[in-house]
């Protein structure tokens, strides 16, 4: 089997309150829609990007840098959508 390609990318959280329940929920929901694996690393802790609970426990406040590792057939599409979501501050009006 060919070795699977892992794309790595760093994103910075821009919304006011960081990766709390709402953004983490949107993150996990988006990640679950794709045929791809995603992990999120912050300060040496790496968790599944499809688990809202795990994402919340990262305590990623505003300005945190998250390292995303994505692999699988739809890895590029997933990465693109997550990046856009983070850049749009998760579309949360109070946190723009």
């Amino acid at each position, binding site marked *: 089997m060919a070795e699977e390609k892992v794309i790595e990318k760093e994103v910075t959280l821009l919304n006011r309150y960081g990766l*709390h*329940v*709402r953004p*983490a*929920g949107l993150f996990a*929901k988006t990640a679950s829609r794709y045929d791809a694996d995603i992990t999120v690393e912050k300060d040496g802790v790496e968790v599944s990007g499809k*688990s809202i*609970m795990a994402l919340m426990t990262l*305590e990623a406040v505003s300005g945190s840098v998250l390292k995303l590792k994505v692999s699988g057939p739809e890895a590029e599409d997933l990465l693109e959508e997550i990046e856009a979501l983070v850049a749009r501050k998760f579309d949360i009006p109070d946190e723009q």
Partner: protein
Amino acid sequence: MQESQTRDTSWVAQKGGMETVAGLATSRGFAAGEVYLALRGGRIAIPERAIAPDDADGEVLRYRTAQKSAKAQIDKMLDDLRQDGGDDSLMVLASHLEIINDVSFSARIEKCIYDNRICAESAVRRVTDEVRQIFMRMKDKYMRERVKDVDDVESRILRILMDRDDNPFAYLVKPSIIVADELAPSDTAALKKDLVLGFATDDGSTTSHVALLARALGIPAVTGLADISSRVKSGDFVLLDGTNGAVTINPDASTRAAFDQMVEHERQLAEFLAEDSSGAGVLKSGERIVLSANSQPGVDLCDLKRFGAEGIGLYRTEYLWLKSNDEPSEDEQFEAYAAAVRAAGELGGGARVTFRTLDIGGDKLPRMMMQREANPFLGCRSIRYLLRHRDVLRTQLRAILRASAIGKAAVMFPMVSDVREMVEAKSELALAMRSLREDGIPFDEHIQCGAMVETPSAALNAVRLASECDFFSIGTNDLVQYTMAADRGNGNVANLYQPTNPAVLRLVQMTAKAASDAGIGCGVCGESASDPVLGFLWVALGVGELSMSAGFLPAQRRILKALSKCDADELAAYVNGFLDVRTAEEIYDFCLRFLLAKVPRFEDIQSFFTRAQTV
């Protein structure tokens, strides 16, 4: 607690039953109405049942069924909410659905049932407890509070497993003030928002779920009321003041009339001054006068934007001490200060927060800290206290400095009466900076540092003091009190509390001139800055910044806009001519007539200041 009486007149008849409870001003606005009491009562007690090995599959099945019902409940609530147009609860509940769907979460619960041979309820509790522990250790307060969402999902699943009733608002049929111990997103999702006049809760902070919801809906709320839910019952009449953070239970007729009048004033003020709620403070002739807000922990920071503050000119840190009667830690202080600089940062235009270090003593005495003194106003208060308790000062300066890395901050020392105090305080600031550098913690190396001018000695020595300061801020309350040697709170001498006494005016003018000669800023941060007559008088005497309760900013902005630099110079010339020949009262009256002649609708504006009691 009073027995219930005929509904319509209960608040009139129960004169002795009136009480006012103070809490956090969480969402602005006022409401008067009947209480609807909704008790949710914290943690659900669960049966801790061990099970036989054969029953594990059955318990897992019970859990999965409960999980499915929980999903169905939330789906239904989401549908209902979407039909109503949706609000903050919609997004939060969507996330709750994600928590329930979280594969790793349910896998851990099922594993816990198999590994420990316990019932589904116990497993849910154990696994959620593990998650809770992670949240409890979080440093960020906002993040830490999201544990409530995890609690909420846990409660939902447990209620289903144990077949308990769900909706605390089943009997809400008429407009009411919701009083609760605490409210979770799933509780408020089931709430008919058009029946809610306001919220009052035991629990909570200004960033709890109910706080966010109330602000999003524009409904007044007071939180952190400790035991309000055990003091009232459904049907009691209450007055809710979300602007100042107070709830009055069973008010008497005169209290209610006063409240109604206040509400009416607020409404008219908002309407009349709507167009003055934003933009920089500026004279008709174009000179800038900075209009900033006084603030403190627990006050709604949304007010800054709402009333167009250009920053926080006075942040009263002592409320962190008074609130708990205890020493707040560096981290606790940092959180409060960071929230303030963030809120100011959102105002744009380089808005900053001026933190006044602990101003304690005189009339503000946390029991634990102070020795009894025969003459507290002339005793060991404010900077004097801090210089004798350097650990307290250093901790506070570190917290302020840490906040300065997040947004623009300044430090201000209160009650400086000798230039050496300023020098020593600044050396403490330098030490705090050094310790942060050693710890590798970022801060603003160029943070501005100023003195409150509120003693006659500081004003008289303003030239020398200015050489040690980046700015002055005149605290008019204390300056008047110390100059006139009269306690405003003492009815027998209150007539001597005269902000326009020539002695006070001379000191203000001296201070402003010394600042201007030294090329530093000079503001007034006493509540007199919001007095419709005094605000402009201070400007005429050379003051360049007025800081006051945010609500008064639009009115003051309107007054400044109507007057020019020429008017200011003219008023200053008149007042200077009066200093040796007129009384305080005559000078005030003159200023009032001056403004009446120059400012369109000044009487209307003035009438809105009736609540501008100097604090």
